């Protein structure tokens, strides 16, 4: 018998958390080159998005196919501030002078010069948009499938909007050539490392937050809404609010991830927002296991890593593999790899484990 299984879930969580911290804060920086570490920073940003999707989709049954929008809102909010900071007080960002031929900074850019406003906006702006769309859609009981398609349409519309406003958003280019991060020079590898540590810290903090949410009464209610929304309604809850909370939290996480992506990679562009990247955010979650806490994180990192590694040598093969992952995992292993582990464990122990909410694989979905 594995001695770990004798520990209480809480102690195990604490141990896992410590292990994660050791891997992210000690092992990875020690073992990886600066370049690989910066790639890991990027993957961890995707993992943060995945944590939110895991909550909304895995636990809440909300297939959020528009996370790119929130990622982009957070990223643009951060990039706008950094561009303004690079340009210096009273100056306009370089691209605006190049393409926009504006006489002065547009009014909606101005508040982003304030770092506090910009930082708050990276999280609050996506949450606000999610709240708006979510309250419209959930309250009117739009069906799950409609919600998924509307999310995609939102992503497409957002891209078109951003690209169309080249003078003030940088168009297809997005916002590039970001030099500093709150006064620190991003060219310096030491500062790149700092960005990595911040991202890793945020990821761990959000994991703790999400674990708390999943194990709270709200987490149980969310699963109940996923499995039988109508029944929850007859118990006197408004499922729209329950879903809205998960959706808004997931949007906030995506926004934060987008904001951290900017200093890590140095660019935010519409290419990260549209339908395709939005669906790609989901694939890691599906592969890792949508309903588990760590599944989405590990899945997102693994898929992003595989993409980098494989596309270096076999660009066409990667597309096939990506497609095949969607097909095989979603159709035949809906609980993702996390459920595989559970299945193996169960087989070895040959007795059904004490059911603990959430670590179970879901096979049902809110169809209504």
């Amino acid at each position, binding site marked *: 018998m594995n001695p770990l299984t004798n520990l209480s879930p809480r102690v195990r969580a604490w141990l896992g958390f410590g292990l994660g911290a050791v891997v992210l804060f000690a092992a990875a920086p020690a073992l990886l080159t600066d370049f690989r570490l910066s790639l890991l920073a990027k993957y961890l940003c995707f993992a943060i998005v995945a944590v939110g999707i895991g909550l909304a989709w895995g636990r809440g049954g909300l297939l959020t196919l528009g996370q790119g929008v929130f990622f982009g809102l957070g990223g643009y909010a951060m990039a706008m501030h950094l561009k303004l900071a690079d340009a210096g007080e009273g100056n306009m960002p370089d691209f605006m002078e190049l393409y926009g031929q504006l006489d002065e900074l547009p009014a909606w850019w101005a508040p982003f010069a304030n770092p506090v406003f910009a930082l708050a906006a990276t999280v609050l702006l996506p949450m606000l948009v999610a709240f708006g769309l979510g309250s419209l859609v959930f309250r009117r009981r739009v069906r799950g499938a409609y919600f998924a398609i509307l999310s995609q349409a939102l992503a497409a519309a957002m891209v078109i909007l951003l690209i169309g406003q080249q003078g003030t958003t940088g168009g297809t280019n997005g916002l590039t050539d970001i030099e500093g991060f709150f006064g620190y020079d991003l060219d310096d590898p030491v500062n790149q490392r700092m960005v990595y540590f911040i991202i890793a810290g945020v990821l761990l903090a959000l994991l703790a937050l999400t674990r*708390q*949410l999943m*194990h*709270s*009464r*709200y987490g*149980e*209610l969310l*699963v*109940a809404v996923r*499995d*039988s929304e*109508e*029944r*929850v*309604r*007859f*118990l*006197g*809850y*408004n*499922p729209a609010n329950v879903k809205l909370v998960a959706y808004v939290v997931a949007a906030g996480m995506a926004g934060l991830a987008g904001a951290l992506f900017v200093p890590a990679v140095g660019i935010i562009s519409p290419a990260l927002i549209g339908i395709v990247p939005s669906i790609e955010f989901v694939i890691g979650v599906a592969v890792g296991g949508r309903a588990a806490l760590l599944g989405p994180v590990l899945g997102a990192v693994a898929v992003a890593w595989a993409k980098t590694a494989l596309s270096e040598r076999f660009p066409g093969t990667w597309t096939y593999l990506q497609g095949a992952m969607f097909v095989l995992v979603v159709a035949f292993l809906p609980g993702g790899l996390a459920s595989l582990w559970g299945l193996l464990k169960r087989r070895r122990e040959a007795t059904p484990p*004490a*059911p603990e*909410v959430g670590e*179970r694989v*879901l096979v*049902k979905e809110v169809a209504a």
Partner: protein
Amino acid sequence: MSETAGGLSIRGLRVVFDGFVAVDGVDLDVAPGDLRFLIGPNGAGKTTLVDAVTGLVKATGSARFGGQELLGRDVHRIARLGVGRTFQTAALFEELTVLQNLDIAAGAGRSPWTMLRRRGAVPDDVAYALETIGLTERRDVLAGTLAHGQKQWLEIGMLLVQNARLLLLDEPVAGMSHEEREATGELLGKVAGERTVVVIEHDMDFLRRFAHTVTVLHAGRVLSEGTVAQVQSDPKVQEVYLGHAAGHDEPVAQGAET
């Protein structure tokens, strides 16, 4: 819980689906604490009536409970007024445990702060309901793995902790064994009195054993109403409902309604 149970009062209730009149001007009064059985042939509008009262389908007319108008409110608002219901097929959260099912049912009024924390101990009303429905031993079992009868009891338990003062039960004993029926009937008898209970049922034996009063629906209208004896002796009922079996006590094709 010693709140005064309210009475249900329905006036001129009408439900129309795409031109088809499912409920056609029903007037119905259920006194506080009554255990009312609602019977009628397939398509009589029994379930639709319950759907209308609980806000699932749109209806015209009036349905008041404890003095509050129900029609036109959202489903969850009606539930918060103390109206609870079950469905023909058990609707539980199968991925959650018995305890979690009950805890959720008990929690519609919880503050956001409570919601965001873990459940500490088992709340008293939940423990009491577990005892009442006899599932204390199985509280950590997934609801999906319960036996059929136990699922129905769990549903009733959920209505209890939900603190519903009007219980609308759609065929609660369909598919149950004889012993389970007896137990369920006794449970309903215990619940009524403090609360008002309306049961849709086909099983005539069960009805005779436990009903306080009976309403017969036919083609969207109330055909007859009264005690079991009064209804059974009503010639209109014998004509349209019991039909060929008039005078005998044959139960009507049981559970044929899908």
